[in-house]
């Protein structure tokens, strides 16, 4: 009985992706790759997700470090706030971003006086990705940093390392597997981001149309095109998963040989 239940779920997880792969042909693939929507959407997706990932790493790492080290009430409250975007639906985040950066939003008037427009631009795509994806990284990074024995840092300092050196040469390498896993998760989440982007950045080909939005647009015109776009996104996710699974083993082998 249990096996049947498990098999039901498993087929539900695998079947759609298999069907996706089976429902296309080489001709469709080449035609899809040549389609005018494809190139710009893929480039925009790669550019914005890498930028939002860089921003997330830069700002999320110190935040995660503080969350892991501090025992204060403020840290626990902050942890809760950081988790909030994970449980809030992306559409809600899209509306919330509009209410923040939109013309009539909280930051609208000061931004307008500076001549800065954010909604429906590439910056909006980026912001939406950061808000929905960064919590996954911060959560994973904080958990990884918690496993770093504080004594190793005290020892590193006593051996002559400054605080930043001890962090970079002791804490980060020890936490690295967790940091990489968190960063990958955040990147994958940003790559798939749809709802908040659609509401806050729109769906303008060549400007704010990322791959998921291009699939949405293609579906209205030609299902085969949507299938090709979807396959490319699925392949990127699959490659990431494979890399994540293989990386630790390769790492250990390299370290074992060193």
């Amino acid at each position, binding site marked *: 009985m249990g096996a049947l239940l498990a098999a039901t779920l498993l087929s539900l997880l695998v079947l759609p992706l298999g069907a996706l792969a089976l429902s296309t042909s080489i001709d469709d693939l080449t035609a899809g790759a040549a389609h005018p929507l494809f190139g710009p959407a893929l480039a925009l997706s790669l550019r914005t997700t890498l930028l939002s990932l860089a921003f997330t790493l830069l700002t999320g790492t110190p935040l995660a470090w503080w969350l892991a080290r501090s025992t204060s009430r403020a840290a626990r409250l902050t942890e809760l706030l950081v988790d909030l975007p994970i449980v809030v639906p992306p559409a809600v985040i899209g509306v919330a971003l509009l209410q923040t950066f939109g013309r009539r939003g909280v930051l609208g008037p000061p931004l307008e006086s500076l001549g800065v427009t954010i909604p429906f631009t590439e910056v909006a795509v980026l912001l939406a990705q950061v808000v929905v994806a960064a919590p996954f990284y911060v959560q994973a990074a904080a958990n990884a940093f918690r496993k770093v024995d504080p004594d190793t840092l*005290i020892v590193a*300092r006593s051996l002559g390392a400054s605080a930043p050196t001890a962090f970079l040469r002791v804490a980060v390498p020890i936490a690295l597997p967790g940091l990489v896993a968190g960063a990958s998760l955040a990147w994958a989440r940003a790559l798939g981001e749809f709802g908040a982007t659609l509401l806050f950045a729109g769906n303008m080909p060549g400007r704010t149309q990322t791959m998921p939005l291009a699939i949405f647009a293609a579906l209205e015109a030609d299902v085969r095109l949507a299938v090709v776009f979807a396959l490319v996104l699925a392949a990127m996710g699959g490659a990431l998963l494979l890399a994540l699974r293989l990386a630790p083993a390769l790492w250990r082998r390299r370290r074992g040989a*060193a």
Partner: protein
Amino acid sequence: MRARAGDFTLDVALEGDARPLALVGPNGSGKTTLLRVLAGAVRPEAAEIEVDGVVLHSTARGVEVPIEQRRVGYVPQGYGLFPHLSVLDNVAFGLSTGARRVDRRARRGRAAAVLERLGVGGLARRTPGGLSGGEQQRVALARALVIEPALLLLDEPLAALDATARRAIRGFLAEHLRAFGRPCVIVTHDVRDVAALDLQVCVLEGGRVMQRGDLNALRAAPATDFVAEFVGLAPPI
């Protein structure tokens, strides 16, 4: 010195010469905190710390030498080895950063020499994860000694070891502490350590020094129930 950690207050005056000092006391008496204050990892409320004529911390004179400039060899209770580095690179770490930095070849050579001297030269290529407790303790001591510290701090160096390893490491420490010849503070729970390592004893209870002296003095006139129990006399009922 005076230090505060949470609602715990440490109020201590310590003096010692080259003869190693044992810090004993019940759990929560402030032993580890005291070591960390000496190391510079915990900031005391007020303190005058001087080692070998060098002022490390002086509230009166407004001196506060940061931990990385103190030349303190600190071996924490769990040894605090860097799990991502080989034994050799663990020991060479202290020569790879800050004021003592030397080039890679020189620091690896010196690290290997210290490991050899402590009888664990064969472990150089291993990673800490695969070492026994006794081996980890020797490597941690090698790592602390490579910077030629002015002060050595050992937090319960024998607590995590089984009886056989404990005897071996006790003999090992006795030999190398004598050779070290500089101030050393050892936190311990075991009166046999005090006897074997010929330590001066400082008894800490509730953040205060209750008694100090050598083992004979403590035996002759234990100041508290804890001291009586520590030196092996039945506590007065």
